């Protein structure tokens, strides 16, 4: 039994999504090799090398595209019975390309590991859960929020830098990252999200005020993103990010199934909406029927 994890860790610290994928690998059992596009001396790689369940680390620091990562790794995949990646935009981009190069089918967005070859995954925007069985080598992305972060430290892993194979057909040009001092959306313990009901980009300050008071990340529904209130990487839902924080506060969000698909796994859900018929109340643990322009500032004042 051996597992290959293909992941990225864009910041200094080891991304939580990598630790969550490690937990999935731990549940499968066996020796784990992690291929990651990070620098040898980075904090992320040091942390990874100290993890109990990681035997080998393959660094591909110059790999900025799916083409390069897949071309570098495709000949090295035969020895692994499982190849996993986090179901982040990185993993979703890379794993299917690798699977097709290996002439293998794959499983997206695993939320539960039943055995080494049987998995559960959501379909139809989370309205149904399919149990799938894989014959042969398993290639899968795992939904990070469905797994706890693996954090046990143990013996140091061996670290090797792979020489990059690149097709030259795709070049990374640049990255526009919005500046934020708040926690990353998919890793935050608390998320405060606003929807169309917030009304304008300026009004979103109310949502951000509450988020900052709670040390929370800010999310949004697709309606709020499409209306231009907030940048699109704040979107929570089937087509945006999937979050599962301890507390999710949905403000002025009706609760369309596409949005619910992205936050239904949250431990506690609070809905603040003036429409008492809004579907969000069906999943909310605590619902407050109120005008958000009064309730949210009042809530900001009364927490902490």
């Amino acid at each position, binding site marked *: 039994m051996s597992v290959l994890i293909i992941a990225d860790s864009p910041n200094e610290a080891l991304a939580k999504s990598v630790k969550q994928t490690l937990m999935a690998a731990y549940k499968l059992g066996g020796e784990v090799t992690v291929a990651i596009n990070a620098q040898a001396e980075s904090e992320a790689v040091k942390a990874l090398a100290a993890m109990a369940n990681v035997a080998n680390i393959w660094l591909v620091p110059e790999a900025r*595209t*799916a*083409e390069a990562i*897949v071309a570098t790794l495709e000949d090295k995949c035969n020895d692994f019975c499982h190849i996993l990646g986090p179901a982040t*935009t*990185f993993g*979703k*981009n890379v794993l*299917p*390309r*690798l*699977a*097709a190069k290996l002439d*293998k*089918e*794959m*499983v*997206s*967005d695993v939320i539960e590991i039943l055995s080494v070859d049987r998995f559960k995954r*959501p*379909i139809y925007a*989370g*309205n149904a*859960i*399919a*149990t*799938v069985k*894989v*014959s*042969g080598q398993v290639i899968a992305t795992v939904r990070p929020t469905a797994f706890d972060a693996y954090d046990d430290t143990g013996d140091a892993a061996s670290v090797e830098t792979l020489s990059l194979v690149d*097709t*030259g*057909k*795709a*070049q*990374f040009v*640049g*990255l*526009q990252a919005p500046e934020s001092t708040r926690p990353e959306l*998919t890793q935050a313990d*608390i998320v405060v999200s606003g929807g169309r009901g917030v009304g304008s980009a300026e009004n979103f300050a109310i949502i951000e005020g509450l988020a900052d008071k709670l040390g929370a990340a800010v999310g949004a529904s*697709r309606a709020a993103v*499409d209306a231009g209130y907030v940048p*699109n*990487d704040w979107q929570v839902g089937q*087509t945006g990010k999937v979050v599962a924080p301890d*507390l999710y506060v949905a403000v002025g969000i009706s609760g369309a199934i596409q949005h619910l698909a992205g936050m*239904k796994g949250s431990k*506690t*859900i609070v809905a603040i909406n003036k429409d008492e018929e809004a579907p969000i109340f069906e*999943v*909310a*643990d*605590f*619902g*407050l*029927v109120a005008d958000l322009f009064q309730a949210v500032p009042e*809530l900001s004042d*009364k927490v*902490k």
Partner: protein
Amino acid sequence: MKALVAVKRVLDYNVKPRIKPDGSAMDLDNLKMSMNPFCEIAVEEAIRLKEKGVVSEVVVVTVGDKKSEEQLRTALALGADSAIRVDSEGEQSPLTIAKTLAAVAQKEAAELVIMGKQAIDGDNNQTGQMLAARLDWPQATFASEVSINEGKANVVREIDGGLETLAVTLPAVITTDLRLNEPRFAKLPDIMKAKRKPLAVLSFDELNIEPSNTVIVESIEPPAQRSGGRKVASVDELVDALKNEAKVIS
């Protein structure tokens, strides 16, 4: 340059999905089916590229049964020039569809394939990447902006940390994200005209495709229901509940 656009017939996104009582599959009988929303965006982008003179011809393709010709006709009404249906009963794996689309792309000598990032039924988000791999073309997934000149596509991609720009050499596969464009509606005269546009039907045999299925769906079940919550009457009651009952804030 010829562009190929892949489309899929799926349960309309406004319809609440139902599972068959025996848990063997989804129950799609007599429910409204539509073109997958991400495929609509792909069709729109191809037509815009044609209107700009970047693309000379738009061929729309699907893998599905006779009923999926309805979605091909929709794409033709929106502005696609011709359509291809690869005849298939039941759901095929993304890998089989990728291999089929690769064969069609080669047969048609397409230099660009545009398709949705995922279908809202299987939620796999695999086929475009797999197609690019099979053709050994570069891929630009989750595109929110596309500009093509001098044999290259500059694509802005929606990634977790913001927006990333890639330059890919054509031929290439681009998969669409929601914000790439706003699809147009088909006008009635165009819907009539679309009925006369060419629609070819191919078989897996003709394309030399052997459908495979190594990932088998054993059963489908509803998601765990959340236990019913309650409504609180005031902000004070909410704060109290979060502090003392749910213990999620201090």
